[in-house]
């Protein structure tokens, strides 16, 4: 078997599964975690397509900045800590 194909399939399955979990998970912070995993998976697939620069910029911008800003936005809005008082 081709090693490239095997690893491509593994990462593609991870990416698609994470993308499904973004929609399926109840907790919104979990959605953002899965979204970050999807971004990383897409970046790895870019590596397989030998588009190194796009992959690196994907990680730098989407995982490093966009996910953090999303989490920041979610956590700054009023919400309930699990089982705790409102903060």
């Amino acid at each position, binding site marked *: 078997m081709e090693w490239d194909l095997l690893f491509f399939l593994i990462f593609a399955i991870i990416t698609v599964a994470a993308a499904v979990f973004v929609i399926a998970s109840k907790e919104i912070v979990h959605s953002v975690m899965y979204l970050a995993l999807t971004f990383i998976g897409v970046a790895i697939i870019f590596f397989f397509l030998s588009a*190194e620069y796009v992959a690196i910029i994907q*990680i730098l911008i989407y995982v490093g900045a966009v996910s953090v800003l999303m989490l920041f936005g979610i956590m700054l809005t009023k919400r309930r800590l699990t089982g705790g008082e409102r903060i």
Partner: protein
Amino acid sequence: MDLYGFTEGIVRWLVGIISYFVDWLGFHGFAGWIESPGVIQFLTIFGEALIVFIVGFLIAITMIWQERKTLGRLMDRRGAMVVGPAGYFQNIADGLKTFLKEIIIPEKADKKGYNWAPVIIIGSSVLLIGLIPMSDRFFICDLDGGLIFIFAVFSITPFAILIGGWASNNKYSLIGGMRSAAQLISYEVPLLLSLVGVVILTGSLNLGEIVRAQQESIWFVIPQFIGFIVFLITIVAEVERIPFDLPEAEAELVEGWWTEYGGMRFGLIMLAEYIRGYAGAAVAVLLFLGGWSGPFLPPEIWFLIKVFIVFFVFIWIRGSLTRVRIDQILNIGWKRLIPLSMVNIVIAVIIKSMGWL
């Protein structure tokens, strides 16, 4: 001989022995498969990663020891001195102790986030070891965008810190995570802008190319002095050491975002912090201090000497300065460091267009 050739030799030798025994047992097909080029290549890359990981791990342990001793001297005491020569094995004893502790998960913590945040942090920190070339023969990957990739991997950690701080379900840890994100906004821009000068002078994002350009002309710390200072300040913020360790401010937030982490997780996060410290010092050496160039000694030794000197400066800063406030770090980042790094870019453009380097 480079690292790949060295590892390939070892792997071929081991695989030869194994396939001889397997062949003797009668599994001829398996013995043939194990000696095929694909398997050899996979095992070689695996072995290479193992070697580089062990080296990085030892460097991180040495850095913890260096920090304890130097900080002790700065505070007029001796630091660790009982276990092993000059207290060197104290860290290993501490590490074993953290592994033996009970794993406690807070009852109302968000289990998924609580368990995954340290994995992301440790994984991304260990990935950093693999991205740093120690010389032109001791490296794993020689990417064209290696410099940007290092900072992309660096920037994953604040995300994990925010997740971990939120998932611990504790106000201190949540405030620590929030501070990490706010700090990210203030230091990331001047950090990446301070690299631009070096990239302009070199014309490449490849770390090997950058070091080669310095060997041909001059260490970039001289034409890019402002950039070096900005880089040093922001890399201290990036690896969250003392003047900028707002996410884990012991005096205000107990232990910041890792208040609820104990035992093995605490130990591994601690190790990951020092691995990030090593990576930050190594990038400073590669970009501004000539990388592995130096007379007489092997290049790897020169690289490590420079890294430990830069890390000594980090410890010195830690021993001398107090923590800045969260509004002060935003002021420093946006009002002081970004204009300075812009000036640095202008200097780099002038030097390049005049053809002085």
